[in-house]
């Protein structure tokens, strides 16, 4: 048992083993020396002050940490940063240049959030989801897996977004926001 008068150690012990990685985050090359145990999420939040991606469960069950990796939505909590050399990461902070992304604006308009904690993950996820939809990826509610076209319906959106939990229950607003931001592109 530690002694009652234990004093803190003055000099920090460096992490056991560290790795150098180069990541491209929101268009900027970042060279980092990290403990290989560090997740992409913790690299972003604790090392790069990019706190937009959120830690909701750290176990791949809530989607709050969703970022885009080479354009695809992934969970940054389950990604070991050491594995991501050379990958392009886009976080909520990088999805728009100055102005709001149309989906961000739609989230405000349709009140697609309350506390705002799951919001960055919802938005990044929806952007990735829409890309998947356009690639022709079917979902669990797409009846015919071989269908040439899939309707961009409420049910499709909700199924594809189900990996992003919102405990405030803003799902109705989120779904409306996604429709309003992407419907026009679907029609093209």
């Amino acid at each position: 048992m530690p002694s009652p008068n234990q004093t803190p150690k003055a000099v920090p012990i460096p992490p056991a083993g560290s790795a150098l990685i180069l990541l491209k985050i929101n268009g900027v090359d970042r060279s980092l020396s990290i403990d290989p145990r560090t997740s992409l999420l913790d690299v972003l939040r604790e090392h790069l002050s990019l706190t937009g991606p959120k830690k909701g469960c750290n176990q791949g069950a809530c989607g709050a940490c969703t970022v885009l990796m080479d354009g695809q939505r992934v969970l940054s909590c389950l990604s070991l940063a050491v594995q991501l050399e050379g990958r392009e990461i886009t976080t909520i902070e990088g999805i728009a240049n100055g102005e709001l992304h149309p989906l961000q604006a739609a989230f405000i308009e349709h009140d697609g959030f309350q506390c705002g904690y799951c919001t960055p993950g919802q938005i990044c996820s929806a952007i990735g989801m829409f890309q998947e939809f356009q690639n022709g990826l079917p979902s669990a509610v797409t009846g015919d897996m071989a269908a040439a076209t899939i309707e961009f319906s409420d049910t499709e959106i909700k199924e594809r977004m189900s990996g992003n939990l919102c405990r405030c229950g803003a799902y109705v607003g989120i779904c409306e926001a996604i429709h309003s931001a992407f419907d026009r592109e679907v029609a093209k």
Partner: protein
Amino acid sequence: MSVLQKLMETVVQFMPDKAPDPLIHKHGYLGTPVSRVDGQRKVKGEARFTAEFEIENLAYAVPVCSTIAKGRIISIDAYDAERSPGVIAIVTAENAPKMKRPPLMDVRHMDKGFAASDLAVLQDDKISWDGQPVAVVVAETLEQAEHAASLVRVEYDEKAARVSFEDLKAEATVPSAVMGEDPELEIGNAQKAFAAAAFKVDNLYRTPHYNHNAIEPHAAIAAWDEDGRLTVFDSTQFVNGCKHALAGMFGLDGDDVRVIAPFVGGGFGGKAALWNHTALCAAAAKVANRPVKMALSREDVFRLIGGRTPSEQRVALGADKEGKFAAIIHTGVTATTTHAKFPEQFSLTPRHLYASRTMSVGQKVVNLDTVANTWMRAPGESIGTFALESAIDELAYAMKIDPVELRRLNEPERDPTKGTEFSSRHLVEAYRRGAEKFGWSGRPAEPCSQRDGKWLIGQGVATAYYPVFRFPAAVRLRIAADGSALVQAAANEMGMGTATVQIQHAADRLGLPLEMVSFRYGDSDLPDSPIIAGGSSQTGSIAAAVQVAVEKAHRELVKLAGNGSPLAGANVEIEARDGGLFLSGEGNKGETYASILKRAGRDFIEVEETSGMPFEVMKYSMASYGAQFCKARVNRESGEVRISRWLGSFDCGRILNPKTAVSQLRGGIVMGIGMALAEETLLDTRRGRIMNPSLAEYHVPVHLDVPHIEIIYNDIPDEHTPLGAHGVGEIGITGAAAAIANAIFHATGKRIRDLPITLGKLL
């Protein structure tokens, strides 16, 4: 109830009403769907939550939790942990600073703050629940702290724990009070009236443990300065409560603790009280002698932070041939711990909803060796309405009467148990409008009569109910020479839209455009008062204080304007509009705030005011009401349930911001869907250990579980509440589970009285 309390309640009946707020009927920003003022920051990921503040020299703390439910620690072997890379300190009972026991909640002493459990952990070797922190590891990085925590070995002397609600409920006893009310109440001879009733139902309803599972896990950052003052960033619904409770624990003056919480990532009651981790974070910062962050893992949240108690409720209803209630009997048991002492108030619901010739309500509570139970969205009413509103549905089928009609028949004229007048109750109107919009009359009366392929379809309805609370609140108001206003209150934002609606309010009351008003909150250094984001009370509490602060500011401004002002000696009413004060009905006769202040050579004026005691809540029966309509589809083959339609028709006074209010109401309903169909915290009664401490295994609703939810509201102002409004944060969950259970019965003919209604129960 104490004699004093009874006396007070009698006295307030003779107190005159406060004059209704003139803003109630004025059309301004209030009542319009203003988008959230913090929306941009939230969608850009710029809103900073507790764990996200950058503090120099920050160390990371991780708790080590007990794996037994009762007993004592024999020894803690921290040898490996201490030598693990990056470890700064390991805090145990042996080296933790002394902490006093924090107080539990007492509505009469909200100013002292409160904790969910009055145990100060790490003060001795005693274990009171599985999950209790027994050590805290502090290290340079999160990875190092987490790993070192896994190396701490604890040897226990384990004792038999009381953990099974099912086995121990028979030992439950009557608590001394339930939310300050008598725990038991009898009107007439309900047993006799029930026995003699023409129609009756009598059943047991069970609800399981639930957890809040706000997506932001609880987190704290604590830092001590050289003078022994403590600053804490804490994810809390009650910055001032947190401040006072911490000050008490560490023997500090209230002014020596500052608690900051600008954005809270959901709370639902789970962040209202002080929990152990915040005190432990402060203790760890003291031992490590540097700022420390303790951001709980999802599992830690389940182990350290309690949720909703399980309950077993009996509801027996008797009605005469005409459908009038002869007896309402609503009794039951909930669980708590010796250190939480919180009997969740399900039995308050039946006291205020329906007229009945006789009534017998009451509740008992049993102490378990588990994590402290606490408030979770509509504590009491959420589970109370499940039982009562299921029973009413059962009675309606027994009587072959429409369940909406049965409720209308028993609508009371005055509060059924207190005998007080309703301040504003239009439940029947909410039912009428809801039924019409939902198309209720087209629903076949018989169960099992609608089908779509493999899916059986049913419609259900239930009453939503949540009382009105208000607490005295202090606000500081500054009006500056540029004509802008800043409202400051130690308020809390966890998604309700606190800043937005208070800015709308202040803008209307001050006659300013929205963009000229700002709101500062989330900091205990702001005026001290018990403003809590709880009990759906915060908006009304702050609004009452803003009203008196604005009135005071206006008086001071008129004085400041002096004799040279058109306002001087005015014998008509002065009104706030166009950025200043003007004579009522006399065009531009008046002066802007900017002009008054400039003429007076002042940069600003600042006033601080506190709203009065909530006597109106004692004088009147005050509550929000609603009618929840839903359509459920049940797969005949698999028992899967899908909610395909929802309409909530609410009577919550005046709706201040339709956009944010609708979101809150929907949010409550979504949580009600989870409560009804999927959520359950699994406590293994062999060990007293929660087995599904994860969002993968505790099933909160996902996007696909939630249909479009339509919300309508009466929008009838309550003349006796600030702004004519009622809180809307909690009522949405009430009645929701019953509406679903009732719809499932209508679809399948199967009555499920045990939540959650998982598919196995419908096979």
